[in-house]
């Protein structure tokens, strides 16, 4: 049975021309689930519109 992320994985792998063999799919899905869960944690934090990305320490 197809998992919820499988259609998304198929679409992105096609868009980026990335190979995804069936045997790799469960691990890729599991890793993507972790990344998206952690991404949501970042996403749900409200930031001002003016926020600039990425600090680099300078003199």
């Amino acid at each position, binding site marked *: 049975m197809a998992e919820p992320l499988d259609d998304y994985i198929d679409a992105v792998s096609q868009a980026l021309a990335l190979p995804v063999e069936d045997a790799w799919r469960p691990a890729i899905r599991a890793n993507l689930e*972790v990344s998206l869960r952690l*991404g949501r944690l970042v996403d749900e934090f409200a930031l001002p519109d003016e926020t600039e990305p990425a*600090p680099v*320490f300078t003199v």
Partner: protein
Amino acid sequence: MTTKREMTASDIASAVAGRKMSALDATEAALARIKQHDAILNAFTDITADRARAKARAIDADIAAGKTVGPLAGVPFAVKNLFDVAGLATRAGSKINRDRVPAMRDATLIERMEAAGAVLVGALNMGEYAYDFTGENVHHGPSRNPHDTTRMSGGSSGGSGSAVGGALVPIALGSDTNGSIRVPSSFCGIFGLKPTYGRLSRARSFPFVASLDHLGPFARSATDLALAYDAMQGPDADDAACTTRGIEPTLPLLANPVSDLRIAIAGGYFQQNLFPEAVEAIGRVAKALGATRVVDVPEAARARAAAYVISTTEGASLHLDRLRKRPNDFDPAVRDRLIAGAMVPAPLVDRAQKFRRWYRAQLAEVFKSVDVLLAPATPCTAPKLGQVNFNLGGVELPVRANIGIHTQPISFIGLPVVAVPVPLEPLPIGVQIIAAPWREDIALRVAYALEKMGVVAAPSPKGF
């Protein structure tokens, strides 16, 4: 008592400069230790014996001619195999990179170490493409923990931790994107410095996550760490992120008292998900420094999440073409994480980078009232090689992804950290001494003071 096997870099440099030992003898001793023990430790992937002997002879010739030699004269060192070494393909722990054209020129940091008189003896094992906290490598085998060879060295600079922890060399260089200097330091019981982001040049090293990559030294004492760090400082136009600040030597400040420093323990997130040995280590260090104040670091869990997102996506971008052309030549675990990273929607990456600025401002506020934060380097001592899960805070979690939970929120905004080894039995464990940006001198000073108090030390290797 210091044995010849465990001579520090400063011991060797002063013996060589004082003509009590030749640079060639120091080099031969290191090569002999590597030959004797590396079959077990598996720290080295390349040994540059001919080059090392030639360099050592040149130093000895300079001394014989009465020329002044550098502060690391005759000190053997080795580098994680993501540093370019002239004549070697820069593997970065991979099978794929073994096909690269050999490097034409050494990495900047190797050039600076050798300009100070140090002698490169080889390149070191590491987790594939630095996407690792274990020190395991499917292509070359794992680098092993010098205190128990059935355990992990930590990653991704596993060979660096194993080589210095095993006293094969007094100094090694490594990289730290999310904890890859601090984790092996903790597991192998040695000192490690992850400097401020942009402080040390990354020129001619193989990257992982440009936003977060740092290079730095490992050693068996705070003094050696400062010696190596001072030798490597300075601007470098070949690394776009390298600071234009001048050299700020730390060695002359090392023995300054720490009684005037405001030292606090990182609270909240940093006091959770710890095994008893990590709690014990922090307690010992805090007690020795008289630190009782606990300071909360706001949103550290979110900082770790943002570091994770940036790492997996920038890493995926770096390797996109290799993933297309040679997916079966990757470690499958690394490949599957990178492919997943390529699929993370772009807005999440942008938000992670914006969160980084917000979080940096919060930490800047914290550092208005403290000079040093203490935090665990790892949740536990070195796990068994191949161990998949551990019980963290009552939850069964994957080891590989969670070893660096206490290091990631710190490197995320590039703060300087010295990982110091607390010599617990049966295995050592590290504590992070964290300072404000550009204040490596303070973190090193605290490490030195703790060493003088006998609270931290690199234990003699007893695993082989």
